[in-house]
């Protein structure tokens, strides 16, 4: 579409807003509908029929990258080692069960398809990570938040957050370090040094971070926090480190300052705004033909990884001393996959092989679409399903 960028960005937000409104109307989470909105107004649908459409371009891509950066910034901001340690026995037990049952499924499927280890590990990550955003919102909507099942669910999500931070760090090194071996070594050393420095500042340089985000007014504080996060993310990308991982560390650093709550309040709308564009952009970038080609594989993954989350969640719930019905709810609650599967797929898309560039991103979109709707639905009907299962 030969429109000015402003019209284009306006169209992006309008399409996402309409998608979100539809999602609320049909009682589903907004994430799959943002993605669908992106597919619909993109070149593959509206473009095909010759209507004005939104073309993937630099402007939308930058806004989407801001979405990734802020999603991960919040992951870091709300991430607390102390919280993990506070009830480490149960969280670790439930989290480990979740990791050991779900992650290998994706890896095994990947290897069975004849993929390389790195490719299979990406698939493992995509199917492993549940959607904190969708699940937490569903917990509140269903009123489960006040019940005992909320603790194992949220506890396991915290554990997953920790795993995903480490995972993204490792996998981004695997993807972004392409090329000949001597150059790779230098790249890896630079990237590793940068991450180490970031981590050190986040962990031990609270005073510095505090000073950096300490604005005199709300406005200045907002600007400082955004500037810090986006700049560090951008520099990371520049030297071959995942912007997502860098943003996570910035979030962790800011989270340990006294401004943590203020920044969280100020940046939440910013995150929501750009995260919506990120999901939209995922849809926009999706090649429908490639997505159709992966439909069979998506079906296999849905069939395999829905029961694994139900089982791991059930076992985790049992570890928390819950009865069968509530433990089953924990399982149903963990089925939804969402934002982080897409972030992993975006990271994979930066890789060199056709599987990383094409198959995994296309597959992840279809998979997240199905799993987010399926997961939300399973939560709503979990008691009925449990009655059938236990009654039969």
């Amino acid at each position, binding site marked *: 579409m030969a429109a000015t960028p402003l019209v284009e960005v306006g169209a992006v937000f309008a399409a996402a807003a309409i998608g979100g409104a539809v999602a609320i109307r049909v009682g589903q989470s907004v994430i799959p509908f943002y993605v669908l909105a992106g597919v619909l107004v993109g070149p593959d649908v509206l473009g095909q029929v010759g209507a004005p459409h939104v073309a993937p371009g630099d402007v939308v891509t930058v806004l989407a990258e801001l979405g990734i950066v802020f999603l991960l910034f919040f992951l870091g901001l*709300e991430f*607390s080692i102390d*919280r993990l340690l*506070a*009830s480490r026995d149960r969280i670790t037990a439930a989290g480990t069960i979740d990791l050991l049952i779900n992650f290998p499924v994706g890896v095994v499927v990947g290897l069975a398809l004849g993929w390389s280890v790195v490719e299979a590990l990406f698939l493992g990550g995509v199917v492993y990570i549940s959607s*904190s955003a969708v699940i*937490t919102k569903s*917990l*509140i909507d269903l*009123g489960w*938040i*006040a*019940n005992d099942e*909320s*603790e194992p669910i*949220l*506890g396991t*999500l*915290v554990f997953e957050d920790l795993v995903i931070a480490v995972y993204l760090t490792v996998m981004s090194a695997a993807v972004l370090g392409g090329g000949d071996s001597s150059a790779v070594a230098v790249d890896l050393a630079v990237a590793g040094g940068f991450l180490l420095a970031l981590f050190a500042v986040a962990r031990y340089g609270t005073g510095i971070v505090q000073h950096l985000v300490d604005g005199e007014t709300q406005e200045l504080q907002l600007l400082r926090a955004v500037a810090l996060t986006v700049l560090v993310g951008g520099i990371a990308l520049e030297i071959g480190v995942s912007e997502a991982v860098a943003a996570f560390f910035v979030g962790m650093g800011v989270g340990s300052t006294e401004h943590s*709550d203020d920044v*969280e309040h100020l940046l939440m709308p910013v995150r929501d705004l750009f995260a919506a564009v990120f999901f939209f952009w995922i849809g926009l970038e999706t090649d429908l033909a490639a997505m159709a080609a992966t439909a069979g594989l998506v079906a296999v993954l849905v069939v395999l990884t829905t029961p694994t989350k139900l089982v791991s969640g059930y076992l985790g719930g049992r570890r928390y001393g819950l*009865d069968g019905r509530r433990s089953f709810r924990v399982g149903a609650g963990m089925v939804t996959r969402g934002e982080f599967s897409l972030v992993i797929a975006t990271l994979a898309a930066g890789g060199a092989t056709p599987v990383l560039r094409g198959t995994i991103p296309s597959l992840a979109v279809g998979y997240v679409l199905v799993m987010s709707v399926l997961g939300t639905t399973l939560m709503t009907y979990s008691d009925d399903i449990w009655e059938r299962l236990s009654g039969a």
Partner: protein
Amino acid sequence: MAVYESELPGVGKKYEIDLDDGSQLVVVIHNTGKRELFIRPEPDADSEKLFELSDKLARQVGTIMEGAYFQPIKTDTIETVLSEESLIEWVKVPAQSPVAGRTLEDAGVRVKTGASVIAIQRDGETITNPTPDTTLRPDDTLVAVGSRAEHDELESFVAGE
């Protein structure tokens, strides 16, 4: 009464309060400030949502619940905590109290106990901001601000101990 507190990572905190009839009141305080109230008829029942309040409204309702505006029962066990160091307590003036018939200044209530009388409840009426020459009468209820130690002093002083 038992109150259980638990963390809800990414959401806020949850408080479960045992009620006398065996049910539980569940209060979820969101990080956004929103409060949600649930009732759980039995310990293993599902929580039924009662209502939700914004941060501001919850504080107002909380103050009413606490009895800052109206205290129906006047015993010496009622107290309203303002901060760690100061609370409001209600003290009844007994018939044979040494302070009965004397003014606040005469009796030296604040000088001797440290607690300040901020109101006097008498015959269903409340005298706010009593002056030093307000005379205390038997059966008055003194509403005083002070630390816990000062309240203890005040109580024994008014009782004539």
